[in-house]
């Protein structure tokens, strides 16, 4: 993938990105001989995957899938190919700098776009884990902590290199909301669950009225209300153009999410859902998808005490669409495949678990037409594995994004991201830290000298 010039205006970048993909790789590449797990469709024992111009052009058995003349053929015998992993909830690229601040519990106007550090080592580590698309979320310390951002983990110099553009050119993303204990603090934050729901309802009611005013004004700028970045975004949610990605653990908090979603008609995905197994039928009846996390033990916070490894299995059985997430740094992006292994240990079907890493998450992000399975026409995002995706002994050998090699474990620099070691820490942090300290020391010395 070529690196685009950062100073071009967004519209030019958009146009260029379409052109760039075409320029980047016109010669088809055929990956031949590996076991292919397309996720949509049955496994292919000895298959061929053909990609061209950043897209998948063919997937099929080796003996019945013709390889175009002039194609670069790569032998992947003994390997396993599956779609690039999609992580529906992560905090790579900056952590707490990505979302709202402590000034209030509801800040939908804050964009992850303005806070992500593309130089963070966490992004390189996610590529090493086979993650090709990720939903970077602001934290859960607010009722509404800001706009999330869906990213393709292409090689990047600036955040623009990572964006997934919607047809109107705007970057794809959701709205992060949370309930339960995380957003509970001293005023103006809520002190109780009832207060939390009330604050959220007030803002959505305000957004409805704002929307109505805008609609009544039609094209008359005199009648149009003053722009309000927060209400505009809630309006996007009410209009169904932005999905609410909602942190919720306890069964009663989950029910509150479903209640608010019904009242205001917004589209929502439940995240973490620790006690979802207690209300699986209700979640299924509401038609709400879940993005769940697997951790090695319950506890660590009161709301997580009833976490259970069987949750994926229970949800699957109830008919809920289930994706997984790392919540990086809660779990490590490099070990995202492990979530599927744990899901199967907890009784989930193998197919469901593999979809939980890929297609289900693509649906959770509304990107299922572009990513999530090895299907002709979709983006050429896939991973080459050394063995079965559910085995602890399997390594992600290569990560391909839009037909370009984004991670290769055999390269020493990439191996470092894959396993860690001296130099795998964040290169930027010591820099900031030491300048800060040095200035502090100099200031103190000056003060002492005077």
């Amino acid at each position, binding site marked *: 993938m070529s690196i685009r010039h950062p100073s071009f205006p967004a519209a030019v970048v958009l146009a260029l990105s379409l052109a760039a993909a075409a320029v980047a790789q016109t010669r088809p590449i055929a990956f031949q001989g590996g076991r292919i797990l397309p996720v949509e469709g049955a496994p292919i024992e000895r298959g061929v995957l053909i990609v061209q111009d950043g897209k998948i052009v063919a997937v099929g058995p080796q003996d019945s899938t013709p390889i175009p003349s002039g194609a670069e053929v790569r032998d992947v015998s003994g390997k396993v190919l599956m779609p690039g992993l999609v992580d529906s909830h992560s905090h790579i690229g900056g952590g707490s700098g990505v979302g709202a601040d402590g000034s209030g519990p509801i800040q939908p106007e804050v964009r992850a776009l303005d806070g992500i550090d593309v130089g963070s080592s966490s992004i390189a580590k996610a590529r090493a884990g086979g993650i090709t698309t990720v939903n970077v979320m602001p934290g859960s310390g607010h009722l509404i902590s800001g706009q999330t951002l869906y990213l393709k983990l292409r090689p990047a110099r600036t955040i623009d290199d990572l964006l997934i553009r919607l047809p109107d050119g705007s970057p794809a993303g959701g709205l992060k909301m949370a309930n339960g204990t995380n957003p509970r603090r001293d005023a103006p934050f809520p002190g109780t669950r009832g207060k939390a729901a009330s604050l959220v309802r007030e803002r959505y009611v305000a957004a409805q009225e704002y929307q109505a005013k805008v609609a009544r004004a039609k094209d008359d700028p005199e009648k149009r209300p003053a722009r309000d970045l927060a209400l505009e975004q809630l309006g996007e949610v009410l209009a169904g153009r932005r999905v609410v990605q909602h942190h919720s653990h306890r069964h009663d908090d989950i029910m509150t999410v479903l209640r608010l979603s019904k009242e205001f008609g917004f589209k929502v995905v439940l995240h973490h859902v620790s006690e979802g*197994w*207690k209300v699986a039928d209700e979640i299924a009846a509401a038609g709400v998808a879940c993005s769940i996390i697997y951790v090695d*033990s319950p*506890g660590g*916070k009161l709301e997580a*005490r009833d976490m*259970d490894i069987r949750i994926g299995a229970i949800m699957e059985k109830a008919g809920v669409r289930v994706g997984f997430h790392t919540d990086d740094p809660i779990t490590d992006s490099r070990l995202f495949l492990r979530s599927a*292994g744990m899901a199967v240990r907890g009784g989930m079907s193998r197919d469901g678990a593999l979809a939980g890493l890929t297609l289900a998450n693509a649906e959770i992000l509304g990107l299922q037409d572009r990513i999530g399975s090895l299907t002709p026409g979709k983006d050429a995002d896939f991973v080459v594995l050394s063995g079965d995706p*559910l085995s602890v002994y399997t390594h992600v050998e290569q990560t391909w994004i839009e037909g370009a090699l984004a991670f290769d474990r055999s390269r020493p620099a990439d191996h470092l991201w894959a396993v860690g070691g*001296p130099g795998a820490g964040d290169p930027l942090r010591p820099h900031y830290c030491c300048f800060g300290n040095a200035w502090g020391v100099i200031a103190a010395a000056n003060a002492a000298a005077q």
Partner: protein
Amino acid sequence: MKTFSFLRVLPSLSLARPSARCVARTLAPALLALMIAVPASSAAPEAASPAPAAPVSAPSVAIRGDTVYPVNGSPLKDGLVLIREGRIVYVGPAAGQSYGADVRELRAAVVVPGLVDARATVGVSGMLNQPHDQEQVDRSAPLQPELRAVDAYNARDELVAYVRARGVTTVHTGHGPGVTISGQTLVVKTKGRTAEADVLRPAAMIAATLGADATTADRGKSPGTPAKAVALLRTELIKAKEYADKRAKLPEDKRPPRDLRMEALGRALDGSQPLLISVDRGRDILAALRVAREFNLKIVLEGCAEAPLVLDEIRTSGFPVVLHPTMERSFGTRENLSMETAAVLRRAGIPFAIQSGFEDYVPKTRIVLYEAAVAAGQGLDRDAALAAITLDAARIIGVADRVGSLEVGKDGDVALYDGDPFEYVTRCVGVVIDGVVYPGE
């Protein structure tokens, strides 16, 4: 809530006398929740009355495995481990062996020694993560070696039963990292009764931390830097040496009064209760080795994220390493940790074990089996990975005469799995401690 019909219970484990509690596990999540809410009932798995304090009355158990890994020897196909009165009396081929009808028979695909976690805080740092169940660090002073782990260990914390259900039968737990000396540690079996009833070594080690993780940013509070922490530690060790000398040499009326802190450090000085020093940066590992040399201490290095940078120094010291969890979050002093360090230590010939460590957030504890599994997935040979959570761990924490391998005469501690214990999809299907059978996952 629906029944858990997909939940296969103890799949390859045939129970001659199926326990009512095991069957109950299949019924409903409500029951599961009930069990969680009443940890006391899950602590004594089969007895209506409290489980016996001594293993003498434990029933005889025959454990057959498609593969039995004794750890101190070669794997056995179709192997048998026979336990009588809480101790192992036979390990070998199952063929030709007979035992009485009174012997309870268990079967599993894979049988290994009960797992030994070389460094945990389970039972001290409780599941709920609320002030009332977090006993791992008191921050009122930087050096408190007199704090005993037996006074802090809650055998009935739900996490104790949780790690046991995944195969962990012995833990080295106690005061945690985070201050220069936080207190003592103990070694217990995960039976979940009381500290006294379950303990193997009540005063195993003294937990210390060097480096940025044990400094305070509060103005005027010490230690504010890693170097200051070393100075504090050295000062206290010198005091303890002088105290010990005076107590030993002076006539009774001239002796200094008893001082619990000095007594504890005295045990660190004479090697009977070694310092377990948590260090991650290369610089801090070297500082720990320097202090050990100065005071001729026997120490155990713990954490050691940057061990690959100072491998020669660690090897030359001869001290063992209790390595950080393989999946530890790589932040702060651990930003450079590698999932391959276990393999690196193995190649360097440095004795090591793998730990579950301390977690201050979700998940509240790690499972040492899974940490070894990922090390095995990242280049550590599987036998070494298993040893790192059984026999090698038992050696480092001083209980290898009792646990860590399947040998005649050792405690009847066994973990049973329905496949390769390291694989993500494998389940623990049963656990035996001193011949007493506990449920698996």
